[in-house]
């Protein structure tokens, strides 16, 4: 299991995420991401211009109000380890987004079983509920929380809801010998254990 598989861009690489989010316009996107992140590259076919900024410079005071169609914070856990940074960045995203624009925040799922078992990854990780609360607090509407399943052949985007996870697993037919138990794990409320990535979205 590589770190690249955990990160969200493989899912987003298929492009349909942006397409389903469907910002009203697709002229300008701003990606806040650590060095080496590929999300800006992935988004480039979909927007007139895509700019990546380092997390340290995330709060782009020089961006004009309502000048951006999509703000994406990629690999939140590598951008910052404190909530204040997220609150500040989300508020700033709200300021620069046009009407109809959207914010996407992706991060590692802190409850993913393989991470928990191996003790892998940063110790402090964001919970989807707390990220969603920050988006709602900044005035974003229709805030949604999702799991990202980045394995090749799936690239699934699953609402954080037990029935969604259960039926995703039933349809996806993971063929490993333990795969047959995944729908049951989801049904019993353990869906957070199954997926490496999370994302929250909100609209202006």
């Amino acid at each position, binding site marked *: 299991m590589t770190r690249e598989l955990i990160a969200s861009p493989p*899912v987003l*690489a*298929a*492009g*349909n*995420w*942006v*397409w*389903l989010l*469907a910002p009203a316009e697709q002229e300008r996107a701003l990606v806040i991401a650590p060095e080496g992140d590929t999300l800006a*590259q*992935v988004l*480039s*076919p*979909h927007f007139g211009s895509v700019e990546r900024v380092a997390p340290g410079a995330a709060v782009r005071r020089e961006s004009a109000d309502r000048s951006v169609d999509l703000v994406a914070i990629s690999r939140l856990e590598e951008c910052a380890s404190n909530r204040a940074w997220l609150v500040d960045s989300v508020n700033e995203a709200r300021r620069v987004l046009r009407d109809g624009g959207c914010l996407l925040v992706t991060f590692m799922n802190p409850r993913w079983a393989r991470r928990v078992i191996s003790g892998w990854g940063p110790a402090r990780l964001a919970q989807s509920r707390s990220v969603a609360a920050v988006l709602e607090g900044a005035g974003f509407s*229709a805030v*949604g929380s999702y799991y990202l399943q980045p394995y090749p*052949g*799936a*690239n*699934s*985007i*699953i*609402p954080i*809801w*037990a*029935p*969604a996870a259960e*039926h*995703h697993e*039933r*349809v*996806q*037919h993971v*063929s490993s*010998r333990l795969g047959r138990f995944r729908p049951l794990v989801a049904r019993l409320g353990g869906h957070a254990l199954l997926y490496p990535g999370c994302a929250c979205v909100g609209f202006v």
Partner: protein
Amino acid sequence: MNRALAAALDDALRRLGDSLPADWRRIVMVKNDGPIPVPPHPVDGDPARGFNLLLLSEAGDPAYYVRCRDAADAVAAREIEVLRILADAPALRPHLLEAAGSRSGGIQVLATRYVDGPLLARLVQGMPVPEWQATLEELIDLTSDVGRVARERLPDAGSAAPFDFAAASRDGLKRLADRGLGAARSEALARVLDAAGTAARFPQHGDLWPGNVIRDGSVWRLLDFEHFGLVDAPLFDACHLTFTGTEYLLTGGHGLDQPWVSQVHAGTPVGRASRNVLVHAARRLGLAPEAAAGALVHYLVEGTDRLMRRGAMEEVWQFPFREVTALAELIERGSDPEQVFFEELVRD
């Protein structure tokens, strides 16, 4: 949601007597194979294959499975048309999924009502061999009925020219020879194909494996008509269902320990049942033994070559490749595929 997607989805669901869910939690993206419509500056040359959605009811039960494809995707457009035409035949309707297609802007969708039954892939695991054989024969009868309707009603249901097994397999066989099958084995298979001559074309499902058959109450329903009729080599579906059915029966789809061809040759219980199923299918089509043997070789060559051409991982194509090799080695050792697989036809 993108307006074109929403409009296409809503139209398709209305044709099925429903409407688009307003709650985003009810939409699961289950397969995500590339952006549609294709963005203005694609990053690489990969074809955009779109995505599939699972729509849930308010209670969280699966309601629809939706394929979303680029409006220019001719295969997807054809599948919508094929299902519409086949569903017009009352006898077939119980065996197809209720489906409706629509398009808007740069996207087309095919929404099918979800059937919450077990797949044959699951049912078949550990099934008693006589029941397994009867199930496969029942499915072969069903797909024959579907093929017959397709031949009458589909506008592109195949050429009137007979199917030439050797000509259709030539390029694939050459590629397999280059990928490790070797010249001698390739020639052994070519001899069977040459002897097969030609046979009448018959529309095939094209991907009839246990994951594409679902049990709905007392009937079987067939899934995935994306490639329906694009393959018209006789016996192709029967060979594919029997080979993959053996794999699911014995290992749950995790690859056979002993090649299927070798099991048929050795006369294991599953091998004998496989032979019975293939003979049953060949009789339905009125195939002569040499044509049936050619059809089997064509299936193994074409099925393996197709996987390789699509860039499938070795762990996927290694099993059919092993079957091709096993059959070629049997022939090299003096066995006759007509006798090994279709002895009863020879006696006919």
